[in-house]
């Protein structure tokens, strides 16, 4: 948590609150916020209690020296699953604490708090983030997802279980939307139904398309003569190449709309094309003289008439 080993308790509390806000998965934009948030929560769970703090100092040090056969902590960078409740002050069970931590202090130090007990017959919902490409939203996709969760083993001790789920991403999903997988959340502690798994969809940034909701846009370069004379050009879309008619006399910045060619959501989005006139890198002498002839011919055209100059 970035505080000194001998920091007073109230300093720990302040540092914790600040970090909790910073890394809360609903607030933070950082990719590893879930893991960081969990770590901060664990650290505070220990540090807020002077006795545990002493135990952790000691055992933590032993573990680092590789003694006592302690299991190494799980790889905190992989596996995205996180639970809502693994936190100080929440009345949920301890699923989600890391292995190392759970083996030190057992399933959720502090235990249940009364208020949530009635709902505990059903397992907790889990959440994970899934990154997909824009093309996946057009065609649908499948993903293999590794989820780790802490469950109570047969001997009553918590153990980490890794599940691999092959999930189907439905066609037409938009950025920020959530997919619910029924019964794929945490198993119930009391033998009831398992919770649901919610997958939040994020898009990988695309090299040529921009996405806004269900609309997709593309900047399309055209030559000066295509702009003047009109043309039929090939245009890439996430669904494949299409032929586009550039109208006669198209100016740079002109926006064209292809209705219904955005993300095929329930209400399909549109595909927008913004034209941009680009010049060749080099002009031959012949080309240059042709431009000069054009300049002479069209000398009366003032493109800055609107600016009053």
């Amino acid at each position, binding site marked *: 948590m970035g505080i000194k080993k001998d920091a007073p308790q109230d300093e720990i509390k302040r540092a914790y609150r600040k970090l909790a806000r910073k890394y809360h998965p609903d607030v933070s934009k950082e990719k590893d916020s879930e893991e960081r948030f969990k770590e901060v929560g664990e650290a505070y769970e220990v540090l807020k209690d002077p006795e545990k703090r002493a135990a952790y100092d000691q055992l933590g040090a032993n573990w680092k020296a590789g003694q006592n056969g302690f299991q190494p902590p799980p790889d905190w960078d992989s596996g995205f699953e996180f639970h809502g409740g693994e*936190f100080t002050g929440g009345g949920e069970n301890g699923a989600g604490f890391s292995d190392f931590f759970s083996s030190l202090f057992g399933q959720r130090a502090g235990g249940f708090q009364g208020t949530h007990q009635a709902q505990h017959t059903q397992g907790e919902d889990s959440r994970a983030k899934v990154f997909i490409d824009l093309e996946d939203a057009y065609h649908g996709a499948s993903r293999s997802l590794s989820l780790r969760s802490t469950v109570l083993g047969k001997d009553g001790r918590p153990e980490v279980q890794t599940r691999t789920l092959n999930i189907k991403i439905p066609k037409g999903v938009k950025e920020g939307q959530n*997919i619910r997988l029924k019964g794929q959340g945490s198993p119930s502690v009391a033998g009831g139904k398992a919770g649901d*798994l919610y997958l939040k969809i994020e898009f990988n940034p695309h090299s040529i398309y921009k996405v806004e909701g269900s609309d997709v846009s593309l900047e399309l370069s055209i030559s000066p003569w295509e702009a003047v004379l009109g043309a039929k050009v090939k245009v890439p879309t996430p669904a494949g190449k299409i032929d586009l008619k550039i109208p006669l006399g198209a100016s740079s910045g002109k926006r064209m709309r292809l209705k219904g060619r955005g993300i095929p959501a329930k209400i399909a989005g549109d595909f927008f094309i913004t034209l941009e006139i680009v010049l060749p890198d080099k002009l031959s002498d012949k080309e240059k003289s042709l431009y000069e002839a054009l300049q002479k011919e069209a000398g009366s055209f003032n493109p800055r008439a609107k600016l009053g100059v």
Partner: protein
Amino acid sequence: MGNEVINIVSGVIVEEGESVSFSSLCRYCSVPAEQVISMVDQGIIEPIESQVKSTYWQFSGGSIIRVQEAIRLQRDLGVNLPGTALALELLDEVKALRQQVSSLQRDC
């Protein structure tokens, strides 16, 4: 460490799903009805038709996500309900602004 492979599972897009009743919303989010009512009062979620009696309320699929988010903010950060409503609105705004920034950056 058990490692089991489960067959392909498919889910539903919550936001595009059919509307949910008041009681289903409470069930999906594991919250008591009173808490949902107070979230409606704060404008965190809105019933599709607010004129009808609360027992007949229907909510959009996205309300499930919104309520869950609100619960997490309250529980994890100790924000009260009006604070949660404010945080959610500001988060929406931040999200929209970030999107604008990234689309502007790519124009340069």
